[in-house]
């Protein structure tokens, strides 16, 4: 059974919501699909009972705008499917979707907007699979969504601004931060500060977090790398060491931090799997966080009427997402003949300028999180690379010496990237390993391939699909 819409938007972060808001104002029949239980993506993630606690003034302008947007979407006639995942996109814009009850449906639209966001990037170290080692994002989500601290005392490590944000949030929530261990050194950060004015507000924001950490006397170290997580069944201690200019561990500088919680992250990777599966061309741009969906100036991908917006077209934060969602909406309205070219131009010209500034900030952000090739050459053989299939660095090294030097080659030789997460965690890592170990171009190394279903699903759910009927309880409007 198929349900038809003018436009289906995948992802309800600022990009998806901004597009839905404009399109629905013009009477378009819109469906927004998101795998989270709430709309608003990572930026608007909040405690389910926070609203009842009284409205506190939100100092962040983007969050204020986002909250207003989410409120409009909830009240308006946009249909929202939360807790649902898109399994695949097929010709004629047909989507296979699993809803929150595990029922599978087909949906169809005249145009699609893919606003699938980003995930955290990691640098594997020995023992990083131990419970108690989590991403900085996971630590933040525990506090923001459930009001629970990641640990009694949390060690924060990796690189990039999210470390500071999470450490400051732990303090705000009366938790303890053991130390903040930044892998990059000041000289590298200064090198990143070459972009224009777009980054100054962000630097200021970073400085306020830093001030809070300094005031709380949180030890902060630069140029140190997480080397090992130790523990029997869960984390008990973290070994760190200084790194040289190439990112290699300096032997003899190791230091042990006893802790049961480590929050670690190394920047972000765009979620390109769904656009890739739909046939959208991708390209590698290190300034934008790696493999991204290639879009034209109207945000349309290489596939007609499939648009990609937000982090999936380049990591730069919610500001860029908010802009790109609106550009795609105006472009669709123009393409469908609802508004003329002049109106499209008037609405998007200022957005294009703002977008350039956000991309500038993104370049700074991605530079901050850049890891040197030496980091990857230094990973010991026993370190797990593919967490799902339990493929080690040693497994990969031995295939590298067998001359498997592409993403697909290593995948076929080792099963790296073939588990439950389908390479979402190890894909960007494997790419960086291959780049560090060869002179090949990003294009020659390639990108993890994505096939439907792009998310795990039981065969039972697929088999029952034809008997499913529309669910009325989760839908509003006329599906």
């Amino acid at each position, binding site marked *: 059974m198929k349900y038809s819409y003018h436009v289906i938007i995948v992802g309800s972060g600022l990009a998806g919501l901004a597009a839905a808001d404009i399109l629905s104002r013009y009477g378009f029949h819109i469906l927004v699909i998101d795998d989270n239980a709430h709309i608003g993506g990572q930026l608007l993630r909040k405690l389910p*009972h926070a609203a009842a606690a009284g409205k506190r003034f939100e100092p962040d302008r983007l969050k204020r705008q986002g909250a207003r947007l989410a409120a409009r979407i909830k009240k308006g006639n946009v249909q929202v499917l939360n807790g649902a995942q898109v399994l695949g996109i097929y010709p004629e814009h047909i989507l296979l979707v699993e809803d929150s009850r595990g029922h599978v449906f087909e949906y169809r639209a005249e145009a699609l907007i893919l606003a699938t966001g980003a995930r955290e990037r990691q640098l594997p170290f020995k023992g990083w*699979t131990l*419970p*108690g080692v989590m991403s900085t994002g996971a630590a933040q989500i525990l506090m923001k*969504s459930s009001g629970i601290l990641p640990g009694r005392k949390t060690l924060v490590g990796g690189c990039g601004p999210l470390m500071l944000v999470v450490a400051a949030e732990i303090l705000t929530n009366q938790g303890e931060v053991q130390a903040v261990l930044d892998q990059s050194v000041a000289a590298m950060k200064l090198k990143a500060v070459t972009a224009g004015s777009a980054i100054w507000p962000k630097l200021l924001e970073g400085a306020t977090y830093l001030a809070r950490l300094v005031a709380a006397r949180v030890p902060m170290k630069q140029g140190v790398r997480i080397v090992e997580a130790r523990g029997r069944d*869960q984390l008990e201690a973290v070994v760190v060491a200084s790194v040289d200019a190439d990112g290699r561990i300096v032997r003899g500088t190791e230091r042990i931090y006893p802790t049961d919680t480590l929050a670690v992250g190394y920047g972000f990777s765009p979620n390109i799997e769904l656009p890739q599966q739909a046939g959208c061309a991708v390209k590698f741009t290190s300034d934008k966080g790696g493999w991204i969906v290639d879009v034209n100036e109207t945000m349309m991908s290489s596939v007609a009427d499939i648009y990609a917006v937000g982090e999936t077209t380049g990591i730069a934060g919610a500001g860029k997402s908010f802009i790109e969602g609106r550009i795609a909406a105006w472009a669709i309205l123009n393409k469908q003949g609802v508004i003329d070219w002049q109106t499209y131009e008037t609405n998007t010209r200022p957005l294009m300028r703002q977008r350039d500034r956000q991309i500038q900030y993104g370049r700074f952000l991605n530079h901050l999180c850049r890891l040197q090739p030496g980091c990857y050459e230094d990973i010991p053989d026993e370190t797990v690379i593919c*967490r*799902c299939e339990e493929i080690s660095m040693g497994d990969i090294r031995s295939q590298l010496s067998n001359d498997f030097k592409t993403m697909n080659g290593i995948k076929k030789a080792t099963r790296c990237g073939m588990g439950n997460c389908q390479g979402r965690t190890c894909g960007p890592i494997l790419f960086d390993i291959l780049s560090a170990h060869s002179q090949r171009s990003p294009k020659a190394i390639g990108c993890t391939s994505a096939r439907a279903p792009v998310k795990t699903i039981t065969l039972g759910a697929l088999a029952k699909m034809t008997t499913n009927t529309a669910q009325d309880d989760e839908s509003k409007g006329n599906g």
Partner: protein
Amino acid sequence: MFDLRIPSVLRGAKINIHVNGKALTAYEGETVHATLLAAGYRVLRKTPKTHQPRGIFCGMGVCYDCLVTINGAPNQRACMTRVEDRMEIEVDEI
């Protein structure tokens, strides 16, 4: 045990769930992974190949490391599921 629940947070109604048959109090609105962490369940499963312990990692539905059995359904992502009254959760024993 140290209480990981942030004191200033306004919580939903108290609900009762079971973890491996043992009664546990949770609060409406919490995700399963957060409730389990607060109760000290850090190891959520053992890997099929080498029986290594795994727990919360990405916290946002990407990594599939926090898989638990919920109301009889295996391999559910604890981080993407909200707790519900009388939910039966099974985690691998250490």
